[in-house]
């Protein structure tokens, strides 16, 4: 699909960029990725000097899995409540939730099940190391705390959360982990631990659950470093609960009346209470620049908010910028020559 770009000069792609300009383009892109990209591990450069020993790379040895079995009837329609233990509890109440631990390996597995703290930082829900406690984990118990699960079998454990009468209000986070570890290597080496867990989002307080709410503050069109059009929605959690964002975007009323989408919003982002995070929606490079009418619909559980905006993606900037730079340089050069000639002509009579 080749669609003319609206109102801009040089609609061609990189294939029409002259060789010199391609060099400039490559340099510009390279400089940009170095500045923006993830830090490159310095150590990888030194790999040459290493003599690997015992690189016995086995096939994946099967897995351990967890799933939540009980969902509160009141939260049954909430898709988040089917994945995670999410509840609002009054101080002094106790809840029980069953979880199933499965073993798809070819051997028995000793699986340890325990709660540990978690936090939401930079849009990600991250469980703390090992058995790190927080207030929520001190109220949470799992029975049995360990189980020998046979090959292909499963075990059921009950998670009990007993909120004390003097518990402080607010939302707390944790994970109920199922953990296995590799046998300690003979003669030393690396012991590996694998954990898979069910997140806990527990709100404590009198009365009903604090309202969840969020606002979409802005919608902007842009391009990723490699030229992919991207829409960034700035989302603010203005409610009293953490949110797990999901959603889609629909483009309409585009050039020639085109419509496109829905495009999945690139999320999985967990938004802490009071936090504002960008949520990006990546689009195909073939999408014309616009202008488009964009409708973004984001949701967390049953809560849904929409935002509309007219968006124009910046023209495929990188291939065109060399032209602009060259044009600018030529104009400057011409201006300089004209100015020099003018000055020279002007000065001659004065000088002599």
């Amino acid at each position, binding site marked *: 699909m080749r669609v003319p770009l609206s109102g801009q000069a040089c609609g061609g792609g990189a294939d029409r960029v002259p060789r010199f300009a391609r060099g400039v383009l490559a340099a510009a892109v390279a400089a940009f990725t170095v500045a923006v990209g*993830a830090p490159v*591990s310095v*150590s*990888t450069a*030194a*790999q040459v*000097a*290493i*003599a*690997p020993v*015992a690189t016995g*790379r*086995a096939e*994946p*040895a099967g*897995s351990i*899995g967890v799933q*939540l*079995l*009980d*969902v*509160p*009837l009141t939260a*049954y329609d909430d*898709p988040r409540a*089917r994945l995670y233990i999410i509840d609002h509890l009054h101080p002094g109440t*106790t*809840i*029980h*939730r069953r979880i*199933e631990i*499965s073993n*798809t390996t070819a051997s028995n597995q000793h699986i340890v099940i325990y709660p540990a703290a978690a936090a939401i930082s930079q849009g*990600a829900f*991250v*469980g*703390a*190391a090992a058995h790190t406690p927080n207030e929520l984990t001190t109220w949470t118990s799992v029975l049995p705390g360990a189980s020998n699960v046979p090959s292909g079998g499963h075990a059921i454990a009950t998670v009990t959360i007993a909120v004390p009468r003097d518990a402080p209000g607010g939302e707390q986070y944790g994970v109920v982990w199922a953990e*296995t*570890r*590799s*046998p300690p*290597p003979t*003669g*030393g*080496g*690396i012991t*590996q*631990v*694998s*954990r*898979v867990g069910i997140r806990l989002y527990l709100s404590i307080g009198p009365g009903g659950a604090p309202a969840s709410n969020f606002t979409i503050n802005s919608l902007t069109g842009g391009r990723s470093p490699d030229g992919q059009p991207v829409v960034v929605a700035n989302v603010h959690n203005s409610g009293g609960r953490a949110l*797990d964002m*999901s*959603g889609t975007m629909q483009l309409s009323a585009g050039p020639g009346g085109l419509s496109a989408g829905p495009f999945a919003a*690139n*999320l*999985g*982002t967990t938004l802490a209470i009071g936090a504002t995070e960008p949520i990006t929606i990546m689009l195909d490079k073939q999408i014309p620049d616009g202008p488009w009418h964009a409708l973004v619909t984001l*949701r967390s559980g049953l809560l849904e908010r929409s935002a509309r905006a007219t968006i124009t993606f910046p023209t495929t900037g990188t291939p065109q910028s060399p032209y602009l730079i060259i044009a600018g340089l030529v104009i400057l050069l011409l201006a300089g020559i004209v100015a020099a000639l003018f000055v020279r002509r002007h000065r001659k009579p004065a000088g002599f």
Partner: protein
Amino acid sequence: MKSMRMGALLLAGAAGVLTLGLAGPASAAETSATVTVTGGALSITVPASAGNLGTRENSVLGGTISGPLGEVQVSDARAAAAGSGWVATVISTAFTPPSGPTIGAAEVGYTAGAITKVGTATFTANNPTNLTGVVAAVTATGITGDNSATWDPTINVFVAGGMAAGVYSGTITQSVS
């Protein structure tokens, strides 16, 4: 093989949608009733013995030992709502020799390498260069339905000059939720 596995995932997901049953109100006195959902599980590969990452001679300037940790697979058969995600994290302890100073976890890095994907999701490798604290290794976002990611991480340990000879031992934990 992969498609068969995915087929199994989908089947489990479909079964989850169909077999909804009411559980007994086990603790009705204390809390509201619950519904039993037989969906699929979120799972992670059980670690094989990683054995030895590699060996290098002691040197004045030091250098890096890199080696594979063994393949990791995260399967998500929870039939999650469109757009949900999971986060796989990694943390390391210090590496301890039989005697002498340890190599701190700040000298240990994790490179995910290529991620083989099944299903609809965006997987992002974070490639942390310091495993002192829990840090994201691979993040799945924009999930639609069941999905799985397989990668073969490389561990890079920087060994400073003048470290004692011997086998260094440590623990590396990979978690997904």
